[in-house]
């Protein structure tokens, strides 16, 4: 059976123009075909029997698995709810569980979320959304060509549209892409026409961004000795001052993990400085593991963003001492629930504490104390997901019915039994 206008939850762009063919357990992306988006649908194919719930790698009934999961969480003195790769409804259920058992909630991508949240708390932000960029921008600067691989249809759907509400300049945007010398160049650089690509002799994207900030503040005198990066960035500044609407794009995961917060602060400063005279906005890309969704839901329900600790009976935003990675490393959690519904490959981090996995049906989780396979949102279950720009929420359809349970139902049952 063919389904159209299917939303793809496998990257933060949440493209919703997909056609997908479903034949019992098999799902196949039929349009578009010319990119890497198909693999996420292949990953969801189930040929033959449905995977069973498991306790310690042995098949058990769903009820037995739910009961065991409840026991583990009930007996834990400091549980951790982690992963959170899920749709709104499962996030709602997981938050209620976290609250009830005084757990800490973190996300699989919390390391890349934290710098953006921290800068927003400190400075605020200036941002745009996908359609606004598509129709308004005449100048786009992308830090890191790998962003094109991580968000495969960014160019075709947003930056090089066939039509635009704006002028010729917004239809044919000036697109400049920078890589540092440690960056792998995206194949897409060759596939699209008219991209200005520069790979600089810089150790990281962060270094390029800091250099750009310096040039925005003060334009250096150019001489024969001026290096390629400085020369290009000065040209870029001159171009930018004559453009109507410039969008800066970055993906935190491509920045230096330690420097990222400083780098995003610098990007925000660049934008806010330029805003005094011209229109310049940021468009950070993220959300490919549902982190925008999880963060939106916890922020409205608890009042604070992820990472969120409920052990004192009230929600505390505490990404420093209670992030999942350090809690696991320091043995500060004694049980973990890993919620991961979009891809089979998003498996839990290695740990020797009892782990409950509410996971993608094709996930291999033999080490888990409890594994409960659930439906994939947007394929097996109806739901909602939030896009990279944190503004658009897209509906996820149920296009296959092979009796895989909803993650939210499973979590609610576990919660009821505690």
């Amino acid at each position, binding site marked *: 059976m063919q389904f159209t206008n299917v*939303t793809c939850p496998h990257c933060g762009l949440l493209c919703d123009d997909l056609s997908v063919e479903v034949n019992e357990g098999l799902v196949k992306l039929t349009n578009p075909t010319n990119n890497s988006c198909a693999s996420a649908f292949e990953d969801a194919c189930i040929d033959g029997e449905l995977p069973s719930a498991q306790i310690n790698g042995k098949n058990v009934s769903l009820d037995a698995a739910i009961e065991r999961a409840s026991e583990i969480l009930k007996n834990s003195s400091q549980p951790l709810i982690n992963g959170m790769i899920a749709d709104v409804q499962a996030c709602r259920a997981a938050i209620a569980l976290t609250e009830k058992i005084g757990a800490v909630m973190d996300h699989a991508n919390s390391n890349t979320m934290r710098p953006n949240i921290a800068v927003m708390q400190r400075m605020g932000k*200036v941002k745009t959304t996908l*359609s606004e960029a598509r129709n308004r921008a005449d100048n786009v600067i992308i830090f890191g060509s790998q962003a094109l691989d991580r968000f495969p249809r960014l160019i075709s759907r947003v930056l090089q549209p066939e039509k635009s509400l704006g002028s010729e300049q917004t239809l044919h945007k000036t697109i400049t892409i920078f890589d540092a010398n440690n960056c792998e160049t995206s194949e897409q650089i060759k596939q699209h026409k008219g991209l200005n690509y520069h790979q600089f002799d810089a150790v990281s994207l962060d270094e390029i961004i800091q250099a750009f900030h310096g040039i925005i503040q003060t334009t250096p005198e150019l001489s024969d000795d001026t290096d390629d990066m400085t020369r290009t960035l000065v040209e870029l500044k001159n171009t930018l001052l004559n453009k*109507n609407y410039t969008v800066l794009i970055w993906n935190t995961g491509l920045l230096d993990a330690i420097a990222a917060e400083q780098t995003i602060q610098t990007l925000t400063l660049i934008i806010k400085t330029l805003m005094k005279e011209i229109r310049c906005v940021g468009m950070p890309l993220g959300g490919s593991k549902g982190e925008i969704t999880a963060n939106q839901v916890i922020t409205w329900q608890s009042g604070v963003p992820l990472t969120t600790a409920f052990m004192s*009976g009230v929600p*505390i*935003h505490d990404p420093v001492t209670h992030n999942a990675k350090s809690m696991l490393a320091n043995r500060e959690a004694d049980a973990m629930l890993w919620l991961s519904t979009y891809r089979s490959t998003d498996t839990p981090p290695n740990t020797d504490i009892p782990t409950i996995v509410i996971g993608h049906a094709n996930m291999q989780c033999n080490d888990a104390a409890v594994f409960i396979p659930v439906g994939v949102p947007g394929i097996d279950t109806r739901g909602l997901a939030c896009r990279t720009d944190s503004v658009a929420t897209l509906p996820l359809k149920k296009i296959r019915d092979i009796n895989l349970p909803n993650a939210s139902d499973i979590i609610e049952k576990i919660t009821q039994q505690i």
Partner: protein
Amino acid sequence: MAIKLSGGKIYDPAHQMDGVQQDLFIVGEKIYHALPEHEKVTQTYDLKGCIVMAGAIDLHTHIGGGKVNIARIMMLEDQHQHPQEGDHICRTGCGHIVPSTFSAGYRYAEMGYTACFEPAVLPVNARQAHMEMADTPMVDKGGYVLLGNDDFLLNMIQQGVEQSTINDYVAWILHASQCIGVKVVNPGGIHAFKFNQRRLDIDEKSPANITPREIIKKLSRAVHELGVPHPLHVHASNLGIPGNFKTTLATMSAADGLPIHLTHIQFHSYGAEGDYNFSSAACEIAEAINSTPNVTADVGQIMFGQTITTSGDTMMQYFGHEHAHPKKWTVMDIECEAGCGVIPFKYRDKSFVNALQWAIGLEIFLQVEDPWRVFLTTDHPNGAPFTSYPHLIKLLMNRSFRNDAFSIIHDEAQKMSNLASMEREYSLYEIAIMTRAAPAKILGLSDHGHLGEGASANITIYTQQEDVEQMFAKPAMVFKNGQLIVKEGQIVDIVHGITHVIKPEYNEDIEKPLKDYFDNYQTISLPNFKISDDEMEECIGSRITVHPCVRN
């Protein structure tokens, strides 16, 4: 099974009942004035010495949508300073200025509110706004969808399409976004800001080559002709600018005599007189409201202290960003539809401007003669958090309390205001009008906001006290749809309100140009843009009630 509310003093302006002692009965979810046949009273509450009103309705409060979440993240210190523990019925939460959704619902119910309306639902963000409202328990909800800066509408107006086509689009958007009203924010100004225009006055051509006045004309007519009960809800141009009262008066006239609601009008009632080039134009604004029966307004009173301003008005929020406290600010351009600006702000009584803003709000309340046409709001959280309503009511009801408060604000502001000379004190009956009967009437909620036979049993009971601030802060009892949810200011039971919507009739041919627009320019497809009724219930989490339109 009936509940008898015995001997309370009824304040029900919809039925001209001004403190009349009368029994009420609750059967199921409804109010009765006499015990229906075959019903037995199973519970009686002795309400001697109590005041009985309908549940209060807040017609303008920012409780859901992306901007509120941005505010929550930016106000982390306030969130952590106001933790709220859960218990066997209430969920945990935090925040005083921008509370978490559960906490917002509890705080509203504890003050006797039973319905709240989010005034800035961006169509593309409507799902999130409705999800946040669905997770706001205790109260009914509804939203006003934001139009007037969206490229589709501006292009239609610019091309001179017929009013009926604009009406179809407005109706379509109301369906698609599951809203009950239409709001316009800085008409054309948010769009102009995307072209780096920093100001736009009402008769100035925008980059879309139309004026804000034209947008108001078209939208107010559309709302009227579709029979949407709530008039076009207008956040006028030039918010916060000294001398903006002239723009506000021009905005009133732009509706050509059709109903128009001016929101947070305090922020739009400024003159430019005096040593500070900032003065009160409350008198001019109140006179205009008094003499123009098609105009209603809510005040958007400010209160002194820390808050955060969340608005769709990117143009004026950016203009005000240098006054941010603490020094941080957010501005977003959104999806060829709208925008948002979020800026923390601290109103200080020793600041001339802030002190005068405070006085201007009160001057408007006291000078608008008809309480059916002026509404009690702080534009939560922009003027102050909604939890300051009981204090605001006391300022309106108690002249000596008001004058004591006035006497400690900035000296020069005192000289620029005639507040101290105003003798008016609002009565309980007038408070019941502006917080119950009038909002229900102007929203088209026929069985809300009153205590008539057959009305929804949303009832708030206060123990009569000398100190009205105490009284309104902590009702003795609150019933929501017949269920006792608050006792002595404490939540005793949890209910989940519904979402009020309207669905005007329209010509479905409008979907043809809309489909082209979505296919060619948007990053969401038209079918996925629309929120269906079953999606509201199954995914978003709220049942809807559809209210009738009144074709004009």
